[in-house]
């Protein structure tokens, strides 16, 4: 009887088993490493994506709390300061604040095109109650100082402005020279998109904070405000507060209150976070799934080749659990190795990832931190997954009675599979039949191998399709919808007669006017604030184009809605909407829905200009114009427009497109690089292990074929044909999975700002297939080298 009194012997015994384990790991280092890499990638995606998600959410919450970021937002035409008390009295309101905010033209040196500034008022003393700003350099404006401004940091950096510099602005038609005294950031402007644009343009759009007393008189806002915010009390009913706030502000030209989730900067950040959360869960799940399968495969084979040794160990008195633990340690070792690589890689990547976020969103204190809890979780899931994968194989090994285990495994049984029973086998040469039967003998294994490789194709498809979608969207937006050379927007609505003045400007070849009219659309108990875009019915420069590329003529009467808006309002073509205009006479009328279009950007309601005028009961007023311009005269025209006080901004779709495409190009390389890496890890893991196992199972058969005069290439075909078949099946399967996942992403990432078009180009599918085939071919090549260097004599000498 072995007693507790001989721990040394027990320790020695374990040491020997450990040594066996280490040597076998060294012998199978290629397989071990390929599994470890799959695990590493899984852990890396957890650590990177989930880690950055946590860091972002944490930074976001702290920032929002610190800046007292509002819960409900509203802008209006003008209300006296006394209305603030009314707002504060609304049940459910914890804090309320009001301010003045307006757009003005900036006259920037070296910029021909007019730039825009959003001027935001600061209280004369103390800080804003809500929506505070965080000073990053300099100081706040001094009380009563008429010409001091704090400017947004990104704008300052883009323009090279520093505290002490000055800039010129045309406020209310008067040119003023302003002194920059500080630089700041704020959560509401972390993603600062100028009106009429789709992307931040830090070079020509900035936020300027100014004292209330200095800004107030400029637009007749002395003792009045045009923006109001609310912080909700705990447990408050947001919808009710919004409704009450709308009631309070309606007499003062309220444009409709909206919750935080519709605030542009918040929406962008939240969209990113949501995407991050989805990917941070899905990607590790795929990788861990593949790792579990591979461990099962490799350990199963390792155990089969070690039947005899297991028998000897058991004959010597090793207990089942000791033998089982020995093999499980292989799985644990692969996971630990993967975890080490994954943690270091993920930590490094997470830092880089957060760095990219810092470029787009200024979240103070945003630092990548590796939380031990997260790492433990990832590790725990990996170990559990790997062990469950290994457990089946281990259980089989342990269950074998020693006497039986010492006998060699009986030869594999084969029979013609369904393919041959259909009589199709005769069409194949012997080699083809051999490959086919190997697949048919273990159909589940072949299926899971294919599924694994399919995920590598699918990952590539969902990664690349995002670019397809964005490129499609961009093409539609900038080449088919926005065909104007210049978009001019006025500070406030002007008479339609302005179109003649614009047409007289030198270089202008065509003028089409538009009107943006804020309105509340109602259908039953569904309602939505939006802006109705009044457009010229026969416009050539700006058109309504559907997702399919069809140009939609604007009917003389009625509204054409984005599908997402129609869905939110639960309307179909033919339904009648109640329309409450939120500016001008603010009359409520009704209009039929005459068209619904699939579009990708924003939530739009279009109407022919004359119909919109009738609806609002106003004469010919416009908010801006689209211009066709002779390109040689564009710069002169910019300079001229800059001098026109009524012009708030001038945008050029071409320059917007250029900056967008630049950004895309720099991002695409990084993310495609990662995707290719991730996908290859899976494909290599599955194909390499599959081929190595096939080699160990059939090495003897293949060696005898070599002896009989088969060339290396011919034998390689027999060995790798099976993996080829797996890959061949995996690619269409991966296509299906990729298309389905892409569809899931498209439908789950639908926001009011943008919808990703469900467009997958043939090129994306082919690239994904090509990367998978290449990764598989490289793995096969690595195994083929082993096959080529196989020692024929020694393989034939030994019996398994």
């Amino acid at each position, binding site marked *: 009887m072995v007693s507790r009194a001989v721990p040394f012997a027990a320790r020695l015994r374990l040491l020997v088993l450990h040594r066996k384990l280490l040597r076998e790991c060294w012998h199978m280092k290629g397989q071990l490493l390929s599994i470890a890499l799959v695990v590493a990638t899984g852990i890396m995606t957890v650590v990177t994506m989930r880690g950055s998600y946590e860091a972002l959410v944490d930074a976001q919450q702290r920032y929002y709390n610190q800046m007292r970021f509002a819960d409900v937002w509203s802008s209006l035409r003008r209300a006296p300061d006394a209305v603030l008390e009314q707002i504060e009295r609304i049940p459910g309101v914890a804090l309320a604040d009001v301010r003045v905010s307006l757009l003005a033209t900036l006259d920037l040196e070296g910029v021909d095109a007019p730039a825009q500034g959003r001027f935001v008022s600061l209280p004369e003393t103390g800080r804003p109650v809500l929506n505070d700003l965080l000073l990053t350099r300099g100081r706040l404006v001094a009380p009563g100082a008429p010409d001091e401004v704090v400017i947004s940091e990104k704008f300052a950096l883009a323009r090279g402005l520093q505290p002490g510099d000055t800039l010129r602005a045309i406020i209310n038609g008067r040119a003023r020279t302003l002194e920059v005294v500080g630089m700041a950031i704020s959560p509401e402007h972390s993603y600062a998109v100028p009106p009429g644009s789709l992307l931040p343009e830090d070079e020509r759009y900035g936020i300027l904070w100014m004292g209330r007393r200095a800004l107030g008189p400029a637009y007749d806002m002395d003792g009045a405000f045009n923006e109001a915010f609310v912080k909700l009390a705990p447990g408050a009913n947001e919808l009710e507060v919004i409704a009450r706030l709308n009631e309070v502000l309606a007499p003062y030209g309220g444009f409709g209150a909206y919750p935080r989730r519709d605030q542009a900067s918040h929406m962008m950040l939240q969209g990113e976070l949501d995407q991050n959360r989805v990917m941070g869960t899905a990607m590790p799940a795929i990788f861990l799934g593949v790792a579990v399968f591979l461990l099962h495969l490799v350990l199963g084979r390792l155990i089969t080749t070690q039947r005899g040794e297991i028998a000897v160990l058991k004959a010597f008195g090793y207990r089942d659990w000791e033998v089982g633990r020995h093999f499980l340690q292989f799985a644990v070792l692969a996971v630990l190795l993967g975890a080490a690589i994954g943690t270091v890689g993920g930590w490094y990547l997470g830092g880089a990832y957060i760095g990219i976020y810092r470029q787009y969103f200024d979240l103070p204190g945003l630092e990548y931190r590796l939380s031990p809890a997260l790492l433990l979780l990832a590790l725990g899931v990996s170990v559990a997954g790997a062990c469950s994968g290994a457990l089946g194989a281990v259980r089989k090994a342990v269950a074998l009675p020693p006497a039986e285990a010492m006998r060699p495994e009986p030869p594999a049984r*084969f029979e013609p599979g369904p393919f041959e029973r259909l009589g199709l086998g005769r069409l194949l040469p012997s080699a083809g039949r051999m490959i086919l039967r190997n697949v048919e003998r273990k159909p589940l294994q072949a299926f899971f191998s294919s599924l694994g490789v399919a995920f590598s194709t699918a990952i590539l498809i969902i990664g690349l399709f995002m670019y397809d979608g964005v490129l499609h969207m961009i093409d539609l937006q900038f080449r088919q919808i926005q065909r104007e050379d210049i978009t001019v927007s006025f500070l406030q609505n002007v008479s339609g007669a302005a179109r003649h003045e614009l047409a007289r400007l030198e270089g202008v070849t065509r003028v089409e006017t538009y009107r943006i009219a804020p309105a509340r659309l109602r259908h039953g108990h569904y309602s939505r604030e939006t802006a109705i875009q009044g457009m010229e019915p026969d416009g050539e420069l700006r058109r309504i184009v559907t997702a399919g590329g069809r140009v939609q003529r604007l009917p003389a009467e009625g509204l054409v809605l984005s599908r997402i808006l129609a869905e939110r309002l639960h309307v179909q073509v033919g339904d009648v909407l109640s329309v409450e205009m939120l500016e001008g006479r603010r009359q409520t009328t009704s209009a039929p829905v005459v068209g619904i279009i699939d579009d990708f950007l924003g939530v739009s309601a279009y109407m022919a200009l004359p119909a919109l005028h009738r609806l609002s009961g106003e004469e010919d007023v416009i908010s801006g114009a689209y211009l066709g311009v002779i390109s040689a005269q564009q710069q002169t025209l910019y300079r001229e427009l800059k001098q026109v006080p009524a012009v708030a901004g001038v945008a050029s779709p071409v320059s917007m497109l250029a900056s967008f495409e630049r950004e895309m190009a720099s991002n695409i390389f990084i993310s495609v690089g990662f995707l290719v890496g991730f996908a290859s890890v899976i494909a290599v893991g599955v194909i390499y292990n599959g081929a190595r196992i096939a080699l160990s199972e059939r090495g003897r058969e293949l060696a005898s074929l070599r*002896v009989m005069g088969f060339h290396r290439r*011919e034998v390689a075909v027999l060995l790798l044909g099976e993996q080829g078949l797996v890959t061949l099946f995996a690619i269409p399967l991966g296509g299906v999975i990729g298309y389905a996942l892409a569809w899931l992403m498209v439908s789950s990432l639908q926001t009011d700002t943008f919808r990703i078009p469900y467009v997958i180009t043939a090129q994306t599918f082919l690239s994904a297939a090509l990367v998978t085939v290449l990764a598989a071919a490289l793995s096969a090549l690595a195994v083929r080298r082993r096959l080529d260097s196989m020692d024929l004599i020694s393989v034939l*000498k030994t019996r398994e």
Partner: protein
Amino acid sequence: MPPHPSLPLGQPVLCAQHLCKRYEMGEVVVDALRDVSLDLHAGELLVLLGASGSGKSTLLNILGGLDVASSGSLHFRDRCLSSASTHELTQYRRDHVGFVFQFYNLISSLTARENVALVTDIARSPMRPEDALALVGLEARMNHFPAQLSGGEQQRVAIARAIAKRPQILLCDEPTGALDARTGRLVLGVLEQVNRETGTSTAIITHNAAIGAIGDSVVRMSSGEIVERVRNPARMAVEHIEW
């Protein structure tokens, strides 16, 4: 069955001169073959006898183009194999040599007929797989997989596979090593019959001295050297061998 008189020696098919094979394994040097010269004649049935480690397998591997000698020369007819490339050796095995192994080495995923067809597919003027299987008496079991065949049947499939391409040389490494006496006799009978009917020069390696009696010539090896060459006046019938 009456004994068959040994055939008069034909032209040498394989001609080995002063073959040496030295393995250097770290500091240990093993001389597996020492100055071995041997001819295999057309139609001859040669039995190579020797204990384990005597060098007989090494010699067979070199004769079959699986290995190359450290020194000495080997000619197949007028072709020199001592300096042939790997590719040329493969081609030599493919066109001229049939192998029978101790453990059959059939492809488990192919039926008996398909195992034979695998070789006839790449041969220049092969027999029909069915004919090769009929020659070893297995026409009735053609569509069985290896796992459905007994050891002796599997070895007969292996012989059919080896001879189906009509090789000039048939090399058999312990073909009865894994079989019981009765089955072993059966397999030897097939080998003898094939040699007789097809005229394939055949070399059988065995440690079983009794088998020597069925050959035209017997070569005995020990410690890498040929220690005895005997020419049998007549081949003994297989069923008379004392196992």
